[in-house]
């Protein structure tokens, strides 16, 4: 209470206002209480509004955060599913390829066995002569020597007739001798110039190796 108010009170008392001091005091006290009550209510009301805002904001934020977590979870789950299924499909393809590869490999193994058997058959002589002739023609004739696996030289008693055919084909005087040197192969031959400047490897293995891609395609076409 400042001095001005104090003076006002004093004047009221001195002038003998009709209203008794106790009544006036009661009114002042009541006014102070009322103002305080009003202010208190405002403070609490404001706090309640703020609390409501916090709550609403919290609900909104929490829902947003939860939605984000679920969204990311769904994305992760989708990625996981795609990755796992892609892996499984890849493994499935590999498994089928492996099975096909097995069959192709089996065919080549059997072919090797068949070729071995063939070297012991009556057909082999003709096959060997043809392979020598082809190689000799490929070289262009001339002075040639032929190398065969150990024991196969027995099929080459009439080598001069091959030389004659080569000469006829290449128009080049040709002589072929069977080398004492042998080769490590299932069958077939290696033909080279006597001076060893050129050679053609017509062993079964080399022919197979040279044509492996083409052969695999042919085999795949037959089997699948």
């Amino acid at each position, binding site marked *: *209470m400042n001095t001005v108010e104090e003076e006002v*009170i*004093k004047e009221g*008392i*001195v002038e*003998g206002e009709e209203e008794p*001091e106790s009544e006036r*005091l009661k009114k*002042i*006290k009541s006014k102070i*209480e009322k103002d*305080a*009550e009003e*202010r*208190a209510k405002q*403070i*609490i009301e*404001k*706090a309640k509004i*703020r*609390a*409501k805002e*916090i*709550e609403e904001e*919290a609900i909104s934020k*929490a*829902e947003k*955060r939860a939605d984000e*977590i*679920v969204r*990311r*979870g*769904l994305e*992760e*789950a989708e990625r*996981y*599913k795609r990755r796992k*299924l892609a892996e*499984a*499909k890849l493994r*499935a393809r590999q*498994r*089928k390829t492996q*099975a096909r590869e097995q*069959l192709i490999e*089996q*065919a080549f193994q*059997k*072919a090797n066995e068949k070729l071995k058997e063939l070297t012991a058959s009556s057909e082999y002589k003709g096959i060997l002569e*043809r392979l020598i002739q082809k190689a000799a023609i490929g070289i262009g004739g001339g002075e040639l020597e032929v190398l065969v696996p150990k024991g196969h030289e027995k099929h080459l008693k009439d080598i001069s007739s091959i030389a004659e055919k080569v000469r006829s084909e290449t128009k080049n005087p040709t002589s072929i001798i069977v080398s004492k040197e042998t080769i490590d192969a299932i069958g077939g031959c290696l033909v080279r110039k006597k001076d060893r400047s050129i050679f053609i490897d017509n062993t*079964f293995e080399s*022919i*197979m190796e040279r*044509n492996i891609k083409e*052969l695999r395609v*042919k*085999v795949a076409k*037959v*089997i*699948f």
Partner: protein
Amino acid sequence: MKTEFEVNALVSDILKAIRIAEEQAEKRISLAESEAKAIENNALLKRDTLMEEKVSAAEKRVQEIMKQVEKEVEEEISRIKGEVEKEVEKIISEGSKKVDEAVKVIVESIVGG
């Protein structure tokens, strides 16, 4: 008519009474401020709890989704495996019948080519 002394005493009493009333008013406001602070703190606490609850529920939901997806994936992989094994069996069974034919092709290509 009151003497000056009486007036001063009365004024003093009135001022004292007003001061008390004002002090009480201040206490009331202070109490209200504390209450307001408590309301806000409570709201903040509720906010944190709400966030924790929602996040926890969302994480649980994600775990359930993952479990479900893992189950689906497992089933699908099992189905793919079953299918591929059948296909492999068919490839081998049908292919084996044609291996001899393929052998002829290889041999012919080597000795005849």
